[in-house]
């Protein structure tokens, strides 16, 4: 799509339904053809430039007080995740206990933003959270559920919608959906668009409010940066509140260049419409050092304003332990070890 930089920012009111907003941005009928023309008309990604930019951002040296700030911020941005077939209620309870109190040896440790579980584990998570369940902005913890036949997304729309509605009814605050990569790669952008719109509608609660929708692009299966850019725009056009890199079940998962590319789409969308869409890299981020590079990339691409739980998340499980070890080192001045954090 051609981004008209002269278009007045915030022209579209935030309450506009996705289809209407897409029509406004695309400037014409919302047909499969119009979508394809716009998405395929996006400028191609300069892969070498993108990777170099990401590598350049990864060289920043973050030390002492900035590092201490970054470590605490990373914890506040984590979606602590367990997505295994073997998840038991006990596993979810221990995940929640860790989310509420990440480092029992230091009560000043911030809490994570959310716990992310399969839809059928939402009641367990909510029960375990108790009074700690709520908005991460208030220091509480949200419950995110993966839905729409995660991780493959290979099910009929009816099943996907039922999956989503089920999780929302159980009390999930956030829904992580996967796009139909098969349809996307076959060029059926309209189908992907309609699915996202329908799932967003299924996120509506009985009181009329909506669960936040994260759209997983599964960039590891999209093959090219151009496809990632198209999928990002498609997901944003269709009304996703967040765009998320990966399920964590496919390699490669989140990489810095891909996240940078998605952040650029979010930045351009913000310039175009004034709306803020979140980004969630997920999978493969295990070291604090890597996570800090993501923070730098976010701050340099969309601005520091994005470094808050409603606009940026890390989907991770083992990252938290490494951040806690680094945090202990920063505070005590001695290197810590894995014996001083929990085994998950």
């Amino acid at each position, binding site marked *: 799509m051609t981004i008209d930089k002269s278009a007045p920012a915030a022209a579209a009111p935030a309450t506009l339904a996705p289809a209407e907003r897409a029509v406004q941005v695309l400037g014409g009928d919302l047909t499969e053809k119009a979508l394809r023309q716009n998405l395929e008309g996006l400028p191609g990604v300069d892969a070498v430039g993108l990777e170099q930019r990401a590598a350049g951002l990864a060289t920043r040296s973050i030390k002492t007080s900035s590092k201490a700030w970054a470590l605490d911020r990373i914890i506040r941005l984590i979606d602590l995740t367990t997505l295994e077939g073997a998840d038991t209620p006990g596993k979810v309870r221990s995940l929640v206990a860790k989310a509420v109190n990440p480092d029992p040896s230091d009560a000043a440790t911030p809490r994570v933003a959310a716990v992310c579980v399969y839809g059928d584990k939402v009641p367990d998570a909510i029960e375990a959270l108790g009074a700690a369940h709520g908005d991460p902005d208030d220091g509480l913890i949200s419950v995110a559920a993966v839905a729409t036949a995660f991780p493959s997304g290979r099910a009929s729309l009816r099943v996907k919608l039922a999956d989503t509605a089920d999780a929302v009814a159980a009390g999930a605050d956030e829904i992580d959906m996967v796009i139909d990569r098969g349809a996307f790669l076959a060029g059926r952008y309209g189908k992907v668009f309609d699915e996202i719109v329908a799932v967003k509608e299924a996120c509506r609660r009985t009181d009329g409010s909506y669960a936040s929708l994260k759209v997983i692009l599964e960039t590891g299966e999209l093959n090219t940066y151009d496809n990632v850019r198209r999928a990002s725009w498609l997901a944003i056009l269709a009304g996703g509140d967040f765009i998320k890199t990966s399920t964590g079940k496919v390699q490669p998962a989140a990489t810095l260049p891909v996240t940078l590319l998605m952040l650029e789409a979010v930045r351009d969308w913000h310039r175009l419409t004034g709306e803020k869409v979140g980004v969630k890299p997920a999978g493969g981020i295990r070291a604090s050092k890597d996570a800090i590079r993501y923070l730098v990339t976010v701050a340099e691409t969309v601005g520091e304003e994005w470094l808050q739980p409603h606009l940026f998340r890390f989907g991770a499980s083992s990252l938290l332990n490494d951040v806690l070890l680094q945090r202990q080192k920063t505070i005590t001045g*001695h*290197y810590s*070890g894995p014996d001083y954090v929990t085994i998950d």
Partner: protein
Amino acid sequence: MSHLTIPKTYKLYIGGAFPRSESGRSYEVVSGKGAFLANAAKASRKDARDAVVAARAAVSGWSGATAYNRGQVLYRVAELLDGRRAQFVDEISSAEGVSASAAGAQVDEAVDTWVWYAGWCDKFAQVAGAGNPVAGPYFNLSVPEPTGVVATVAPQGAKGGSLLGIVRTIAPALVAGNTVVAIADEARPLSAISLGEVLATSDVPGGVVNILTGSPAEIAPWLASHADVNALDLTGAGGLDWVELEVSGADTLKRIVRPEPGIPDRALGRILGFVETKTVWHTKALI
């Protein structure tokens, strides 16, 4: 025909690789007579940190190998060390300013040390373990198990010990299945790094032994307070503020071997300094 002299670059040995110090620092190593020999990498606290990470990762593989297999691997170190005898004789005689025959005797002693400790691998458990008599129908067995990651300070400046000193501190820790982060003799580190090359080409898995060259006074405190190091061998730390090291080691419940002048003897006690005793009860058969 004359050929170009190729001076050797002496680097660290961490995780089976030979990196330079992350700090980019190096220091001059001089011979016993004060002549320039080489530049050695001057390890920083972050190199020590990386070495501990490598050593920790290697614990499960090395301690999980059978005792018999560990013995074979340590024997193989002796084989390869012996095969590079000429190089070590050369390095020792220039570093210590001793005759070739004295240097040769030191290499022989180092080779013998590897063989001696190799033999203990599948035998020390019989000596240190026990079947305990208990008043009940149970077997009660005590078995020694490796402590984990051992940080060692090799003897510093001990006479006739630039190679033998580090061998006598590394080898006993390996017997039970521990992995080692060793700080070499600061003034005479070259044969320690060559020993790293021997270890890298023998069957010792990467990360089981890590060798740092540089200042023990700078690096040892970081290892002593490191929560992921399980034992501290201060054999060569007599010249440092070793009481302070012992105190910070105690903060994280490390096993500690105190400083000893000169080169330590080979001894079963050095193996047993780095083991934990596990005692299990098991019912006797009822018939």
